[in-house]
């Protein structure tokens, strides 16, 4: 029973939005959870965060960045095509509780998964300050949507083409040094960014949550591919997370384990490009 793609657009270069017909998942999804999809018989199972969901229309929205074979293949699919497998909602939902100001920090494609979390905090009346960043202005994602769910929105670009010239963590540090009563920082983005965020908030003693993107297979706690070290204990990101206390996460291990299949990923991508006539082999 394949899952129909209802819409696919490129929002910024190499980053796409895909809307999938999955009524049951849409009814159950909560901010912070993810799905696992497999395009076809020979495909790999890959996890993507649920960036938005509509229980009435029965749709689930994901945002993905082209990084390797599967995400490149995914980017060639369009409305009317379908995915063979689509399973979720997986992982624990974000904890959304009344609190002082919440700062949501999203980097790159991580802006998409931070959106439903910001929206959920806003919905229960928390003050939300968001900081979103990208390498360059043309790669900046969902500024308008983030604006809607944030009391204040800061933008940063690595090359200074929009907003603050520099990293999201520069702005975060300033906010922490100011008078704003910040009780929670939630951050999603590349592992290196989340590690820096953790380093910035640590001296201020502010609770900091990150969503870990370890390599996964089943997403149900059955294989242990996704294991991460949190507070000195091995956890399975798919069932114990994906969100964890940033100050306890061993980011070096996470980043090392993400590199585990680098050679194979490279080979898969080369083959894929060749199959599509992208090279002379």
């Amino acid at each position, binding site marked *: 029973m394949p899952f129909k793609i209802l819409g696919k657009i490129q929002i910024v270069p190499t980053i796409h939005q895909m809307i999938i017909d999955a009524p049951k998942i849409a009814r159950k999804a909560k901010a912070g959870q993810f799905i696992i999809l497999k395009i076809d018989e020979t495909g790999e199972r890959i996890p993507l965060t649920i960036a938005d969901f509509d229980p009435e229309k029965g749709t689930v929205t994901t945002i993905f960045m082209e990084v390797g074979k599967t995400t490149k293949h995914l980017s060639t699919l369009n409305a009317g095509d379908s995915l063979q497998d689509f399973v979720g909602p997986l992982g624990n939902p974000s904890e959304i509780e009344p609190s002082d100001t919440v700062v949501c920090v999203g980097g790159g494609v991580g802006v998409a998964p931070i959106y439903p979390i910001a929206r959920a905090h806003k919905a229960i009346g928390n003050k939300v300050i968001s900081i979103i960043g990208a390498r360059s202005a043309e790669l900046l994602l969902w500024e308008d949507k983030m604006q809607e769910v944030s009391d204040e929105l800061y933008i940063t670009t690595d090359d200074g083409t929009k907003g603050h010239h520099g990293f999201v963590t520069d702005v975060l540090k300033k906010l922490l040094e100011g008078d704003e009563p910040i009780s929670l920082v939630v951050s999603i983005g590349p592992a290196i960014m989340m590690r820096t965020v953790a380093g910035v908030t640590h001296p201020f003693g502010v609770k900091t949550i990150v969503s870990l993107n370890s390599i996964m*297979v089943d997403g149900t*706690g*059955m*294989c*242990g591919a996704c294991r991460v070290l949190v507070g000195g204990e091995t956890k399975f990101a798919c069932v114990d997370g994906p969100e964890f206390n940033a100050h306890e996460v061993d980011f070096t291990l996470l980043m090392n384990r993400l590199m585990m*299949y680098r050679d*194979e990923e490279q080979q*898969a991508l080369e083959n894929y490009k060749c199959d599509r006539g992208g090279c002379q082999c």
Partner: protein
Amino acid sequence: MPVLGRNDMPRQDPEKRRSNFDEVALGYSHEQALAEASRCIQCKKPTCIAGCPVGIDIPAFIQYMADDDMDAAIRELKSMNALPAICGRVCPQETQCEEVCVLGKKGEPVAIGRLERYAADHEQDNIETEAIEKPAATGKKVAVVGSGPAGLTAAAELAKMGHSVTLFEALHKAGGVLVYGIPEFRLPKSIVQSEVEYVGSLGVDLQLNTVIGKLDTVDELLEEYNAVFLGTGAGLPVFMGIDGENLSGVYSANEFLTRVNLMKAYQFPGYDTPVKRGQRVVVVGGGNVAMDSARCAVRLGAEEVTIVYRRGEDEMPARNEEIENAREEGVKFKLLSNPTRILGDESNWVTQLECLNMELCEPDESGRCRPVPLEGSEHLMDVDVVIIAIGTSPNPLIPMTTKGLETSKWGTIIADEDGLSSREGVYGGGDVVTGAATVISAMGAGKTAAKAINNYLKGNK
């Protein structure tokens, strides 16, 4: 006077099979099957039946085979066992039906498993599956969770009783361990597929990609269904808790086997999922899971594959046949040895395994020998892939999301002999109740629970 020796089953040559995933055991020829069937002396009081957890009338099906009536033989088998092609291959017959066959006293027991396999394969090859008579619908709905042998059997039995059955499976393929754990060369996936299709042909509605406890909880299922059967297996990998277990290149057997079998990593890059092909592979453990992992590693091209097991060969829980197969394929056995630490390089890759030699003491009152470490015997082995195959326990997802569902300290669901759990209308069976066991015992549990559910739905209990 019966023939003392059983008919050998042809197998693929070890040198050849080391580099392919094709089935190792090739099955009897028609003549061999007839000859083996005629070895059975048709005991008046057959002891073999009690050795089969699902109570197959063994002499009856064998007699049909001896008479060359394979259709009747398969009908007899299928009246008690929905998955004969699978059981004929993976049942530990030497400790079940064949162990108690009378011929075993003087010579070798009848090769019941091989005969069962032959009859089942013959059906796949030769006859159209008979049109199944649709029983009168009872109007009752049952949800079966998990499509391993326990769930498949329960679903088939309940459908045959006229209940409307939905089978929920978390993964994208049905079959449980039969598809993600047991490798192609021991159990071809096409066989599992046709058994799954058979269950579907009984009217069971199979819902893949559905994680119960996440998409719907058991309580939500009970709003729509009159009863629930939990056959969710024991799929949670156990690690050793030693240093270095999170290094890259260290796998749980579940992950390694899932990548290789379910995701077909042995066909990478034709299939997208990769697996690390190590040159020096160590598998820790001594059960079927360890043998399967080691034999997969051999086929992925490893130079040296070693099983590290803390007790002796006699204590190894794997089937003798599989230990033998592994040895023939060049797997080394490092017995009485226990890993204490895994070492890695600066980029987190595993490089060495530290082991400690063990000594078996005299058996204690329970008959078990506890291995004791030999102080100071630590030594290092060079490795680039380590696979931990020391056991699994049930996934806590369902107990965690189901109020009042009692579990033991091992995480197994507590159920009575009918499979009834601590919650009304909720039954369980297979590995989730017993802890990791066998295909046939999971099927037996599925069948028992189906009967109990049927009684419950008819208001007899």
